[in-house]
């Protein structure tokens, strides 16, 4: 197999001879493979991220509404909340022997587009987020910010900032109740990176001072400030509420009892992140499937192109293959020669495609901070890539089969006598 004149060396000599055709052929295959590999990479990393964010959370309790919306808003910090539940719901859950841990999440405000989450230190603890600088929040109006927030908003320990109402930028600024940054979290590759964490009491304090009282709950749909609901209620404390409660079960028994109990006996709803994640993936799945179909089409097209190119190249080579026979090469050597050449082209094209996919992803991450924040790692390898390598081998086998059979059957004498 080795040396300049072994099957590999000889194949390389022929591929060099047809540089342009070889390069185009490799490019065609590489593009198809890159498309489908890039898709697989994003798909698997997105699933990984979604799964990481939800890991260890058995149940989410919040206001009634869409369970998917509850999970999206309180676990992924992506959608608007379904509303709030009274603090007593949290206290009841904490007393419940079926519950090992109940972490409150109070939403409503944001800073430069990053959500301010009122919670307890258990929340960053759940994501193994520890302060890289400073410390974890303790008292009200103290804030510990995620790594991405600190970088994007240029926040340092000791800085103070005011949150703005609503979950998107542009809301009214709560200038009279500023937060003080007491810590900056190390990056975790989870949702925490993009959050400002503070005690639940801060969220209450901001809205008490603000005398803000939303009849439709604190989760303002689009960050608009509902002026018509803005009332001065002298002496009235805003209701002590939280947006959602992240629950870990104490025993498997809880899975059977707790959701049903909450859904039927309280005004709150309980949603299972695992169930909703499956539902979410099946919703996204349709779109991903369409992309995948395009990718498969590309790969099939380029596989066909490789097949045509190899068949053509080997057709032109029938004299040379006959000469090799006349020089003493066996039929098996000829078949090996053709197979090796097909493998080199399809293997090379597939490898180039995988490199292209990772390179493209690296470029994408470099150009789009969102992608980096989302935790896309261009160096991570998706299991599907191994499948693509396998596909390359199959393409090679199919592309080599026809010319190999032709070469095997070639009438050497007749071919050599032709001109």
């Amino acid at each position: 197999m080795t040396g300049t004149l072994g099957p590999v060396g000889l194949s390389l000599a022929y591929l060099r001879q047809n540089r342009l055709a070889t390069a185009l052929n490799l490019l065609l295959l590489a593009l198809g493979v890159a498309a489908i590999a890039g898709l697989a990479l994003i798909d698997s990393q997105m699933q990984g991220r979604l799964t990481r964010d939800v890991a260890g959370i058995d149940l989410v309790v919040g206001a009634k509404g869409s369970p998917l919306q509850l999970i999206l808003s309180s676990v992924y910090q992506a959608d608007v909340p379904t509303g709030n539940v009274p603090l007593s719901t949290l206290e009841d859950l904490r007393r419940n022997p079926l519950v090992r841990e109940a972490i409150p999440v109070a939403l409503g405000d944001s800073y430069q587009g990053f959500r301010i989450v009122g919670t307890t230190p258990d929340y960053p603890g759940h994501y193994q987020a520890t302060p890289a600088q400073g410390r974890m929040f303790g008292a009200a109006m103290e804030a510990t910010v995620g790594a991405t927030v600190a970088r994007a908003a240029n926040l340092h320990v000791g800085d103070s900032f005011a949150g703005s109402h609503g979950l998107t930028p542009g809301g009214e600024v709560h200038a009279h109740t500023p937060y003080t940054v007491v810590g900056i979290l190390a990056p975790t590759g989870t949702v925490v990176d993009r959050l400002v964490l503070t005690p639940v009491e801060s969220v209450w304090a901001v809205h008490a001072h603000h005398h803000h009282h939303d009849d439709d709950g604190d989760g303002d749909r689009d960050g608009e400030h509902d002026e018509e609901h803005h009332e001065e209620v002298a002496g009235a404390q805003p209701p002590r509420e939280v947006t959602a409660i992240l629950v870990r079960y104490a025993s498997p028994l809880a899975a059977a009892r707790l959701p049903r109990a909450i859904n039927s006996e309280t005004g709150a709803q309980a949603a299972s992140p695992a169930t909703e994640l499956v539902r979410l993936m099946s919703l996204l799945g349709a779109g991903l499937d369409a992309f995948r179909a395009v990718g498969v089409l590309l790969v099939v097209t380029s596989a066909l192109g490789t097949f045509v190119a190899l068949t053509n190249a080997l057709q032109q080579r029938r004299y040379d293959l006959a000469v090799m026979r006349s020089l003493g090469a066996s039929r098996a050597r000829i078949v090996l020669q053709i197979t090796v050449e097909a493998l080199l082209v399809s293997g090379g094209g597939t490898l180039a495609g995988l490199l292209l996919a990772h390179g493209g992803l690296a470029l994408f991450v470099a150009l789009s901070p969102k992608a980096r924040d989302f935790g896309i790692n261009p160096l991570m390898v998706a299991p599907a890539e191994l499948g693509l390598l396998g596909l390359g081998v199959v393409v090679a086998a199919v592309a080599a089969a026809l010319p190999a059979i032709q070469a095997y059957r070639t009438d050497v004498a007749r071919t050599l006598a032709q001109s």
Partner: protein
Amino acid sequence: MSPPAPLIHLRGLHHRVAGRTVLDLPDWRVAAGEHGLLLGPSGSGKTTLLQIIAGLLSPTAGQVMVAGQEMTSLDEGVRDVVRGACIGLVFQQLHLVNALTLADNLRLAQRLADYPPDDGRVAQLLNRIGLGDRAHAYPRQLSQGERQRLAIARAVVNRPALVLADEPTSALDDGNCTRLLDLMLEQAAENDATLLIATHDARLKTRLPARLVLTAPALGAVA
């Protein structure tokens, strides 16, 4: 003491293609170290006969003995090995490998015949044919005469007992023709090889004793 076994011995050779007789030859021998000429107009079956002797083609009937081996009874795989080891071929269309350098064209012949690589031999042959300084050139960069010489070098690189050449001189002018024939005879002598040249080139008749003349309806006569 019996006479030495002939290098080539054809017995009752008969070949038909699509029901038409293309070869029907009397017994014919070429002793080792002798050279032979196959004469006849084009279409008289010279190429076919060379291919049968080389074991590339099986005759319809008859026997071909080459260096004591009965080619016609050997398995194809064994014939490939015997051909690689004992027979050098010069084709009418040369069939050099254009993707490989001149040196690699010669090395390929060594390798495919399972001979160990011998770069000294390659260099010596390239020098002999006046292409020593162009070992890394490609066949397409050569003149017709140079390509012809390279084809001969490839045929003799493994020092075969038998060199079969098909119209090696028909495309050459008189000067090149003479030089080429000199080269072939010299290499044959150096390697104790027997030359068998199929040609209709009258210029060769003066240099080699004609042995077998194929006539138009493909019937041979010993001359």
